[in-house]
C-alpha cells in the first residue's frame, strides 16, 4: 500500500514515515500544501495522511481539491486543532477520519488499516474469505486456522490483493503501490512473489486463492465471507 503523508513539521514527518515504512507501507512525503496536493493528485496513492495546518495551502483545501478531482482514496486528518468545529469541517471537506496530535503511532496505524480495509469494502477488522483469514492490525495470515509465515513483501502483496478481493490488479499497480520509489521496478519480481505465495497458501493447489488473468494481472478469487 502506498501512503502519502503531508506534514510540515520535519521531525514528525520523518518519524511518521519511518514508522509507516516499518509497518510495511510505501510512503510518499510532502512538507507543504502545494507539494502535497501535487503528490495527492499525480501519484498512485492508497491513502493520504494530511495535517490541517500546512504552509502554502491548507489541509482542508487539499482534501477538497482531491475530492473535486474525483479521487476516492481514504484521507486521514492529522490535526492539532481538536475543536469539533475543525473536525466537522475536515470530515465535511471529504476526510474519512481524524487523529488528534500528539498521537500515539499505534492510533494512526490502527486508523490507517481500518480505512484501507474499508476502502476495499471490508466491514470487520479481520478479513475472511473461505479458509483464508487476514488480520491487518496484527499483519497475520492464516489458512484453515493455521498461521502462515510470510516475508514482509509477500504479506504486502497478499494484503493488497485481499483488501481488493474480486478486483483485477495489474502488475504495474502492484509494483507502484508496494515498492518504495528507489526500488528497481521489475515486474518479473512480482511473478516470483505470487508464485511463492501460492505455494505457501495453497501447497496442494486446492483452494486457488490467487487467479492470474493473462495480460491483465491478478485477482484474489475467493468469495468474501462478510459475516466473519
Amino acid at each position, binding site marked *: 500500500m502506498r501512503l502519502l503523508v503531508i506534514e510540515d513539521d520535519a521531525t514528525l514527518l520523518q*518519524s511518521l514515515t519511518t514508522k509507516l515504512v516499518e509497518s510495511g507501507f510505501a510512503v510518499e512525503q510532502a512538507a507543504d500544501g502545494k507539494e502535497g496536493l501535487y503528490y495527492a493528485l499525480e501519484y498512485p496513492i492508497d491513502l493520504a495522511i494530511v495535517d490541517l*495546518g500546512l504552509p502554502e495551502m491548507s489541509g482542508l483545501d487539499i482534501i477538497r481539491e482531491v475530492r473535486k478531482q474525483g479521487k476516492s482514496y481514504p484521507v486521514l486528518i492529522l490535526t492539532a486543532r481538536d475543536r469539533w468545529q475543525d473536525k466537522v469541517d475536515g470530515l465535511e471537506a471529504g476526510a474519512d477520519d481524524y487523529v488528534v496530535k*500528539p498521537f500515539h503511532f499505534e492510533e494512526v496505524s490502527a486508523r490507517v488499516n481500518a480505512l484501507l480495509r474499508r476502502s476495499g469494502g471490508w466491514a470487520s477488522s479481520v478479513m475472511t474469505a473461505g479458509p483464508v483469514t487476514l488480520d491487518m492490525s496484527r499483519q497475520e495470515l492464516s489458512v484453515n486456522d493455521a498461521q502462515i509465515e510470510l516475508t514482509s513483501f509477500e504479506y504486502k502483496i497478499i494484503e493488497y490483493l485481499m483488501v481488493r478481493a474480486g478486483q483485477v490488479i495489474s502488475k504495474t499497480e502492484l509494483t507502484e503501490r508496494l515498492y518504495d520509489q528507489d526500488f528497481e521496478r521489475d515486474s518479473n519480481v512480482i511473478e516470483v512473489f505470487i508464485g511463492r505465495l501460492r505455494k505457501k497458501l495453497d501447497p496442494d493447489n486446492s483452494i486457488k486463492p490467487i487467479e492470474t488473468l493473462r495480460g491483465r494481472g491478478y485477482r484474489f478469487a475467493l468469495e468474501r465471507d462478510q459475516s466473519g
Partner: protein
Amino acid sequence: MSSLSARLLVSVSVLLVLFFGTTIVVLDTAFRKAGEQAQDDILDGHLMAMLAAAEPTEAGVLGMPPDMPEPRFSNIGSGLYAEIRDDLDAVVWRSRSALGLEVPVGVVPDDGNHLFLDEALADGTPLRTLSLAVQWEFPDGELRPYIFKVAESLDSFNAQLSKFRRQLFGWFGLVALIMLLAISILMRRLLKPLRRMKREIGEIEEGKRASLSGQLPTELVGVARNMNLLIDSERARSDRYRFTLDNLAHSLKTPLAAMRALLNERDKSDFAGRYNEQIDRMDEIVRYQLRKPAASAAENLVLAPVQVGNEVKRLVDGLHKVYIDKNPAIDVHVDDDIRFRGDTGDFLELAGNLLDNACKWCDHEVRITIEAAVDHDAVASGMLLRVADDGPGIPADAADALLQRGTRLDESTPGHGIGLAIVKDIARSYGGVLTIGASDLGGAEITVTIPPISSQPRPDA
C-alpha cells in the same frame, strides 16, 4: 417611567392643564367682572330713570307714575325690582314686579351716596342691589330724606355665566385633546428612528443583520456608528482571540507529537513510557486550557444565533464516517426553531463531545434531543440538550467523580472524561448545568441545560 413617549405625554399634559387652567381662571374672572360692571351700569341707569320719574304725590309723599318706562318693573316676578323708602324704612313706593316679595332693607348708604350690594330675597334668590340716599326737595321747600333702591335678580346673570363656563371648558377640553393627539402623533414620528434602531438591534441579536443601517437622523448617527464599531470590534476581538488560542494550541501540539514520535522511535523502555505520560498530561492541559473559552453573555448578543439543527446534522454526518464500523443508529430529535444563543464552536463542542462519547460507549443506539428550555420563543428560550445511549451507563457514584475531572485536571486519566469536563465547563460559562443520569435506552443520558440569554451571568456581575 421608562418610556420616552409616556414621559413626554405626561409632561405635556401637566403643562396643558396648567396653561389652560390659568387661562380659564383669567377668562372667567374677566367675563364675570365685565358682566357685573354691565349689571351695575344697568342698575344705575334704572335708578337715574326712577329719580327722573319720581314726583311728590298729593299725599305729600314721594311717588312714582303708574306707567314705568321699564316694563319689567310692571311684570310680577320679572327679576327687576325697585322701591322707595323714607327715613323710617317704611316703603313709600314699590314696583309692581316686587308684589309679594320682600326686598331686603340692607345697609342704608349715607346721604347722597350710591351703594351696591349683593343681597338675597327671602327665598334665597341672589340679588344685586343699588341704593341711593337723597334729600328730596318738595315744592314747599322742605327737604326730606328718601332711599331709592333698585334690585335685579342674579339668576339670569348666573345662568349666563355658567353657560359661558361650560362653553369655555368644552372648547378648551377639545383643544387640549386635539393637542395631546397631535403631540402623540408627533412623538411617534419623532421616535420612529429610535424604534427602527431598536428593531435593528433586535435583528442583530437574532442574527438577521450584521450592523445598524445608516438611515438615521443626524442626532443618532453617532450612536449608531459607535454601536457598529462596538459590534465589529467585539466580533473581531472574538475572532482574534480564537485565532490566537488556536495557533498557540497548534504550535504547542505539533512539537509534542514530534517529541513523542522521536521518543518512541528509539526507546521502548519504561523511561519512554514515563515520558509519554508527561506528554499526555501536557497535551491534556493544552486541550483544556487553550480551548477558546465560551463567549461571554455580552459577546453572545452580537453573535448570530446558531441554527442548532444544521450543526447537529453536520456532527451526525461526521460521526457516521468516523464510526462507520460500529455504525450506531443516531436518532435526532431537534426542534426546528431552536437556536443556540452563542458561539457555533461552543455548541459544536457541547453536542460533539456528548455525541462522540455516546457513540464510543453505545451498543448500537444513540439519541440526541434538543428542545427549548423554557418556551418556544426562539430568542429567549434557552436550550435543553440531551444525549442518550444504550451502552453500559454511568453509575451514580462514578458520575460525581467524572464531573470532578477538569477541575482537578492533573489527576484525570488521558482520553477519558476530558470531553465531559469541557462540556461542563462550557455549559457553566453559559450559566447552564450538566447532569448525568440513566436513559430509557439502557445506558447513560447526559443533560445540558442552558438558560435563556437574559438570565446568563453578565461579565460585570
